[in-house]
């Protein structure tokens, strides 16, 4: 049994009907701040009695309130659908089910306050008039861990401590039996024996102390008013004893000596958090087949990454995943901002939440990714790439050079925009380096891609409603065959291969296999793939405006000076850097671009190094730099995400 679908309306940030699909094991909800991750968790908590963070009743803040003069929502509605019920559970939840296979639970509340309370109605199934047993809600155990949790106080002794809950859960059956037989639980009996042995042992002077007190009291007030006293450990009933127990720790697994253990306030925040979560998981996974045992357990954790270093984050998440997978009745839902977590978990568990006036939840497994693509992404989604899950817009690029240059070019493209929209950082747009031409895999998350060889075959799925722009190189053939007169045989020609130098009027179609995807990607709502006009990034940059001069200058600064004499290459590029290329013919510019690209690609410089130096130069010295049309379009596309409505 698991919570498969949640529908929310009029609650917190969800004005209109919002739906989120969940899987039966681990669910990781990712998204920007303010996208509604906590609202989803809160909606679930409204439905169930949460045993960890206390009751949470509806307040006026729970009703959707727009940031305009409009009225807040008149009512809120939350519906949860449960799937994967076995026959026993179907019998238990029968009125919630009807003829379908899933159980439905509904909650509605009217925005009408009666002495500080909001009246809420809960019913199962499709009719309020169906039999509804509130006890069924108790059979669903929901545990919620807030982002700012005080693990230490939860773990230390006291009322309702974590340890006492766990011990009670473990001993539930035995305790019940002892109560019916009117016997003491072994723990209670042990402590009782211990108490009496303390009181009787003369060597401990406890009995002496007690006697002294009694004597003094009697002297003071006489026999008539006298009282009896006893010195012992007070707690006698199981709950009280359990609440007095304290968890201690030792920093590694080596120690066998209990004396060396220390109290939790000397432990690190992170480890206390882990201990806390471990104690909850212990209770969650314990199943004594008792009738009062919950039929279904739901663990909600906001930001499990809190206080943990990356390696521990990954370990913890993997453990949560295995707990959820191994225990059929345990479902785990976590929200996170951690790219570490997002990259360590499989795509199937990730649910993307978009920040928009009507938030949309997209489970990545519903994006129609072919198996090869999801396997590929699972392998390739590292900490930096998983940035794309938290971005308000995404620019996918092929290599390190683009990744470095594009944010700088974006500043040029966006410089006329209003304040707050002047750069990719402002807009929350991430430039993600795919390290290759892997658009087919990644862009399926944002749009449905046709199989280029068979247009009928499309991967249909949900799409992350975030603007995604891909930038790729045209990659025309490097050499072209040319018929030239054969110098050896007069009157005949022979084929030689010479460098192909594209310019306006002399453009060849590319060999890049991603080009076949352009058509189907560009039909979609969110994604576009932009292709360079001539050849590759550096070439196309050089073809634009007077960029060739700047780029030539950078080559002169990067090219290694020979130990003696002058480098012809440096001399040549020095000359090129003084030319005003805007006055030259396109063919001449193309020749220059060809030379520039050749030198950048040379081991003496390298694309990455060049991109970095050029980025610095443009940024620091505010050099005039022209942005090629396809890059401009890509930047504008990716940064248009937040005003889709205005378009």
């Amino acid at each position: 049994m698991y919570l498969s679908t949640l529908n929310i309306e009029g609650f917190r940030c969800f004005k209109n009907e919002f739906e989120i699909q969940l899987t039966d094991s681990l669910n990781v909800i990712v998204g920007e701040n303010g996208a509604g991750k906590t609202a989803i968790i809160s909606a679930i908590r409204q439905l169930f009695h949460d045993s960890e963070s206390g009751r949470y009743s509806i307040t006026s803040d729970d009703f959707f309130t727009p940031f305009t003069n409009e009225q807040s929502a008149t009512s809120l509605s939350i519906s949860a659908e449960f799937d994967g019920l076995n026959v026993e559970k179907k019998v238990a939840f029968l009125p919630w089910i009807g003829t379908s296979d899933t159980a439905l639970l509904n909650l509605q509340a009217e925005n009408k306050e009666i002495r500080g309370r909001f009246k809420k109605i809960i019913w199962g199934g499709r009719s309020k008039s169906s039999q509804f047993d509130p006890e069924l809600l108790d059979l669903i155990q929901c545990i919620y861990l807030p982002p700012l949790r005080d693990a230490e106080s939860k773990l230390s002794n006291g009322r309702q401590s974590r340890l006492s809950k766990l011990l009670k859960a473990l001993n539930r059956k035995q305790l019940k039996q002892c109560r019916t037989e009117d016997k003491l639980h072994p723990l209670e009996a042990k402590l009782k024996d211990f108490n009496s042995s303390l009181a009787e042992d003369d060597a401990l002077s406890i009995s002496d102390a007690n006697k002294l007190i009694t004597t003094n009291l009697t002297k003071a007030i006489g026999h008539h008013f006298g009282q009896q006293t006893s010195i012992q450990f007070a707690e006698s009933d199981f709950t009280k004893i359990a609440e007095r127990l304290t968890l201690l720790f030792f920093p590694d697994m080596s120690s066998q000596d209990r004396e060396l253990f220390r109290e939790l306030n000397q432990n690190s925040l992170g480890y206390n958090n882990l201990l806390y979560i471990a104690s909850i998981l212990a209770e969650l996974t314990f199943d004594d087949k008792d009738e009062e045992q919950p039929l279904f357990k739901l663990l909600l954790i906001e930001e499990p990454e809190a206080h943990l270093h990356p390696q521990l984050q990954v370990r913890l998440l993997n453990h949560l995943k295995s707990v959820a997978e191994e225990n059929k009745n345990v479902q785990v839902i976590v929200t996170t901002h951690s790219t570490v977590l997002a990259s360590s978990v499989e795509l199937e568990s990730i649910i993307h939440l978009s920040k928009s006036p009507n938030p949309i939840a997209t489970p990545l497994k519903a994006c129609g990714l072919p198996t090869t693509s999801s396997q590929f992404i699972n392998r390739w989604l590292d900490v930096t790439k998983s940035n794309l899950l938290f971005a308000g817009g995404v620019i996918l690029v092929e290599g390190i050079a683009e990744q470095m240059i594009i944010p700088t070019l974006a500043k040029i493209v966006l410089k006329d925009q209003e304040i707050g929209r002047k750069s990719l950082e402002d807009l929350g747009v991430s430039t993600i380096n795919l390290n290759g031409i892997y658009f087919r895999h990644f862009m399926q998350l944002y749009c449905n891609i046709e199989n280029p060889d068979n247009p009928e075959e499309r991967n249909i799925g949900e799409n992350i409603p975030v603007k995604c722009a891909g930038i790729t190189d045209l990659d025309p053939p490097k050499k072209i065959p040319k018929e030239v007169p054969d110098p050896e045989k007069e009157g005949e020609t022979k084929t030689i291969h010479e460098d192909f130098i594209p310019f306006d009027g002399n453009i060849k179609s590319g060999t890049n296999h991603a080009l076949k995807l352009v058509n189907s990607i560009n039909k979609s709502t969110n994604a576009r793939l932009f292709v360079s006009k001539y050849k590759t990034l550096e070439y196309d940059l050089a073809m634009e405006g007077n960029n060739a001069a700047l780029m030539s200058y950078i080559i002169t600064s990067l090219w290694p000076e020979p130990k003696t004499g002058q480098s012809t290459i440096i001399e040549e590029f020095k000359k090129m850097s003084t030319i005003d290329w805007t006055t030259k013919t396109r063919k001449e510019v193309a020749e220059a671009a060809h030379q520039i690209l050749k030198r950048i690609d040379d081991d003496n410089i390298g694309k990455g190094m060049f991109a970095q130096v050029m980025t610095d130069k443009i940024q620091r010295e505010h050099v005039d730099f022209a942005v090629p049309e396809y890059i401009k379009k890509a930047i504008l596309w990716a940064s248009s995400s937040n005003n889709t409505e205005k378009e």
Partner: protein
Amino acid sequence: MSVEFTKEQLDYVGSSIEEHIFLEACPGSGKTEVVAAKVAKEINSWKKNPGGLAALSFSNSATEELTIRVSKYLPHGRSMFPHFLGTFDSFIYKNIVSPLSIELTRYVGESKDASIRIIEPSALLGYKTQYHYAQRGQICAHHYSLNLINENIIFETGDSKLDRALNAIQLEDWQVRDLKATKIKMLGNGFATYRDIECLALEVLSGEKYENFVDLFVRRYPLIIIDECQDLSEEQLIILQVLSGKGTQLHFIGDLHQAIYSFRGVDPAKVSQFIRNNCFTSLKLTRNFRSCQNIINICTKLTKREEIIGNVSWLDPRCLVVQYNNCPTELVEIFEEKCNGYNNNVVVARGHSTLSKFQASTTNLKNIQKLALAIKLYDPKDMEAMNLSLWHFSEFIRYHLKESYKPNSFNCPQSVDSSLMWRRFLYESLSHLINNSLQKIDIDWSNWVKKAKMLIQTLPKQSFCHEDIARVLTPLEKVNLRAPSGEAKSKVSKSLGATAKPSLLYRKSTIHGAKGETHDITIVISSDRAGNDSHWKSWLKNPNSEAARFSYVASSRPKEYLIWAVKTLKPEEKEQLKGLGFTIV
């Protein structure tokens, strides 16, 4: 619990829940307590989670009584979950029809709620047939129901004449189609009558489409205990037959000699057939703790049942027959004399018409007369009068509104959430009318109506009228009230019957209403006209008839004295009654 049980009673409490059992319980046998003990015992030792037992009865009051008694046996605060205690109707409505309402009726509901609203024949609802029937125009969809057993249509319009006319029609195929289509339309809009609910439940239980659901349902309720099983209708028996066929165990508790619901299609012979067919194990409670042996002996003869043992036998006459000349009200003084010293005395008769002779009002009131009567009866010091006053007033209001009504709530419209709010409104309105001197009824109708009309029309605007109720009341703003025809000039007070207090202060009840009760003295009034089942002669004619069972139910109520009031007897009639064991006064 301090109740000590007899062996017979313990036999049932300790009986198996793995077989069908029929517990035949005579009147006064402590049946309800035994059922409560049984239910409590099974709840305490329940091993069939997540299934639960269902203990069903036929009225809300019986359910309440059972719930209270069961709770006494259970630890404080123990919930009944996963068990169900309630009426048969609500069991079916909540557990079978409501969860499947969308599939059954195609009603999609409003804001995720597809609850079907139950309406009674008196509701004003406009789902009408396309054609006319029996020269009485189009028929409303809630005025008939489909009988799935005989595959015919039964008309229940709330008007018995019309019912007879309609039920007499040999319906053609196209007429049946018309009626069915209209019914489907009404269901599709989320309305149904009680009988429709039963039909829908039968549809679930007999359709392949719902087989999976029914299998789960039987596991959810592996044991069904029916109190007053003699009241099971044929449809209900079919429902139980399907459930038992799938494995539900049935415990029937009741007394076939007390079956008095033939007008609802209940036939004790069918129940007894069912019990035989399904090989119920039979248990009996034969000890009557209520009545003295004198009364029991007469009762035994009424329906020819086996020996029942009572508490005590008295030497002095305990079963009396008193005679009246024209009207039973002549006997008031004798009744008062006989009842002197006893507190719980009840006047019982078959029909309201006989009982109404002991009440102050005229029957068949025009709607405007109901308003006048409501005002007249208004007396905050007398709860019985107050009750009647509120009821008449609610009837008056209901006549003018286009709404469906909740049962047992002073005609509270369905769209008003709180019955309490509605009752408050009724009370405030009446006080308001009285404060505006409407209780002056010694004036003529035309003047009184003029005043009443103005007050009623402004009712929705009064400050005590909650906005939800005001919305429902809008038709009142344009209401037109008229004096009863031909009485415009006569005095209001004159045409409402005698103003005297009810002539006898004892509670009055129909036989149906008195079922299951215990009285000190029961005064059973026979009608003055022979030939129907409210007359004593019919009661004695055939011990297997329902008429005999009417007298049996009525006569088995008292502890101390049983009094039959009959019209003056001929000598041979006296002998007949003496032969039964009565003493003629």
